[in-house]
């Protein structure tokens, strides 16, 4: 089973994005950072007790599923959309949705376009091997428009081509667009069009058939969400564990009950995950939130208590 492999190896192998600032990219020292990467770290902390015991395997939109399917990686966290066919035909399990997203278009301001419906005849930069590629085809067909696709292997190249004017518009998940735009030297000259043409629930995924491993990832993620709900942060987690009286919090942090054992882990797993990367809100704010250059607002990804969709099932 994957859990045993990971433990035996002492290392979690995580498929990530290398070029999407805020979600997954190595910094100048080669340390991977980002909203997606944080989940890898949390799982490593929960399973192995050390958030740094992760081996990051760079994947492109095109290679990521093969990497997961062939066993190259234990876990894929690469802004991947949960779709029916990926779940059933490609035989993966999407364990959660860490970011509710939709596909958008970015254009240069001086193009004078204000709606995606005006893009008839445009050249569109698109990453190959993504849902957005299929959505794009559907969208233009539905609106009876034509376009020229420029199929690009990774985000960095997509941005380059877009900036160089090799395409009129760049389309991908809105969050990806925001991340790209944030890193552009002249961010103010680019706008993201209002249309969101698809639902893109992004989340971590594992291979079919190993439910235990899927559960570990799923509940590690939910622990992070629940932690935000109960105000547990990386800074106060030790203190809360000692003082909290909320039974659910205590169960998450392992001071009460045997949740860890049910997962096949020890009882501190939740505490370690939260201590290593912080709760969902912390991760969001640190990597892509409004204080960062990417500046995404919580929107749909706010907690359910604040009108969003992020919702952790009960820990009991």
């Amino acid at each position, binding site marked *: 089973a994957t859990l045993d492999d990971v433990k035996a190896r002492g290392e979690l192998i995580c498929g990530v994005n290398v070029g999407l600032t805020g979600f997954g990219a190595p910094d100048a020292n080669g340390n991977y950072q980002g909203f997606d990467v944080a989940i890898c770290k949390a799982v490593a902390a929960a399973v192995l007790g050390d958030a740094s015991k992760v081996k990051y395997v760079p994947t492109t939109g095109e290679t990521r599923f*093969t990497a997961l*399917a062939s066993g190259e990686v234990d876990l894929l966290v690469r802004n991947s959309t949960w779709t029916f066919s990926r779940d059933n*035909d490609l035989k993966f399990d999407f364990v959660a949705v860490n970011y509710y997203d939709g596909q958008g278009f970015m254009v240069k301001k001086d193009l004078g376009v204000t709606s995606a419906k005006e893009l008839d005849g445009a050249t569109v930069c698109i990453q*190959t091997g993504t849902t957005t590629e*299929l959505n794009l*085809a559907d969208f233009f067909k539905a609106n009876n428009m034509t376009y020229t*696709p420029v199929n690009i*292997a990774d985000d960095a190249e997509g941005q380059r081509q877009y900036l*160089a004017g*090799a395409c009129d518009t760049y389309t991908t998940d809105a969050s990806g667009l925001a991340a790209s735009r944030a890193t552009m030297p002249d961010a103010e000259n680019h706008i993201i069009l209002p249309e969101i043409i698809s639902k893109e629930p992004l989340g971590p995924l594992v291979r079919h058939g190993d439910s235990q491993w899927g559960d570990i990832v799923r509940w590690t993620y939910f622990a992070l969400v629940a932690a935000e709900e109960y105000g547990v942060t990386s800074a106060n987690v030790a203190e809360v564990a000692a003082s909290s009286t909320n039974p659910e919090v205590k169960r998450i942090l392992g001071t009460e009950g045997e949740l860890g054992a049910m997962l096949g882990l020890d009882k501190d797993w939740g505490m370690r995950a939260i201590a290593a990367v912080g709760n969902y809100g912390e991760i969001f704010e640190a990597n892509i939130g409004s204080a960062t250059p990417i500046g995404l607002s919580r929107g749909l990804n706010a907690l359910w208590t604040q009108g969003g969709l992020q919702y952790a099932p009960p820990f009991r």
Partner: protein
Amino acid sequence: MAFVQEAPKEGFRLSMLIYDTRYRAITIQVVVLFLFLLFLSWLVNNTIANLAAKDRTFDFGFLWMRAGYDINQTLIPYTNDSTHMRAAVIGLLNTLLSALVGCTIATVLGVVIGVLRLSKNWLVSRLMTLYVEIFRNVPVLLWILLAATLLSETMPEPKDFKVTQAMVESGAEPAASNILFGTVAITNRSSLIPAPLLDRPLGGMEIASIPVNFSLLAVLAVFIGSVLVNARFLRRVKAIQEETGERPVTWWKSLAILFVPVIALLMAMGFHLEIPGFPTDASGVSKGFNFKGGIEVLHSFSALTLALALYTAAFIAEIVRSGIMAIARGQSEAAFALGLRPARTMRLVILPQALRVIIPPLISQYLNLTKNTSLAIAVSYMDLRGTLGGITLNQTGKELECMLLMMGIYLVISLIISSVMNAFNRAVKLKER
């Protein structure tokens, strides 16, 4: 006497399996076969186990399912409703197109550079040496990336060609305009060249969902006819030369035979060129994002093809140079001593011999170039690897099937090319005693 009259007839002993030359070969082969089969069954076994563990099947049914994605360069009709199979064919055609154009350019360039490297002109031969050394000592991937970057970073955007309202009012010109008398536009996405159009085309039909254009067929037929007539004409000329010794001047007659009929046919069908440009409204303001009309040659294609051609040309130049040098100096001296002029010497004596030396390595360069087109991924060109081995693989998750199919196709292409080479080698082998 150490001499044994009748060596004892020995029966078969086990040790003979190792020591006896007759049996040893068999022993070794049996062992090798056994090991090979063992290895093979181990692979197959693992694969089956792995597929089962991952809850996957091994079948090619996905090839007949809807692809759902679009491709920007399609030599035969394709929409996102077509099958994965057709997408793969599109990719294959793109691969072949790039390989074909690349080989052609590389050959022309390589021959020119190789010959110029031998030139007595110091400057030119040094420049060519520089070219060869620089291109062949740097990874081809770099040339592909550089070509793509060069094209997309230094050429004007399509919108620079547009006439805006303000320009119409002030009478200013757009920042960029077509080159070559306004017929060709090079933007940072593609080159647009005039498209041939017919007013009175002959129509067409579809055979096995591949469109057949009668006008094109007619033009081809006429041209082939002209080539045949020309060949006859040249035979006649040769006969005259053999008879009288004088070779009539033929080039303009040949040209006429080759092109007049085709041009006449095209005129009859109402041939004209469609110049690429922006559609404009009544006041002359351009509309839309992109050029309309003309044939669009994507830069992803140009960059890949050009870079491969430039890179391979460096190797071809070396092949040509050493091929010519391999023909001993004595051959040209002998020809000179017989009174043949340098150009004739080249054509009648040096080239026919150099070609034997040149063509085999040349063909393996073609093979390399063809295989290198799989680097299309670096510049977003949708070749076989991009469609079948890329998007299709990713969308369907059939990595095993897609990769095997793709390798198989490349293998077939390679085998075809190398069997052509072998046939050639056999045909031109020098007669020795």
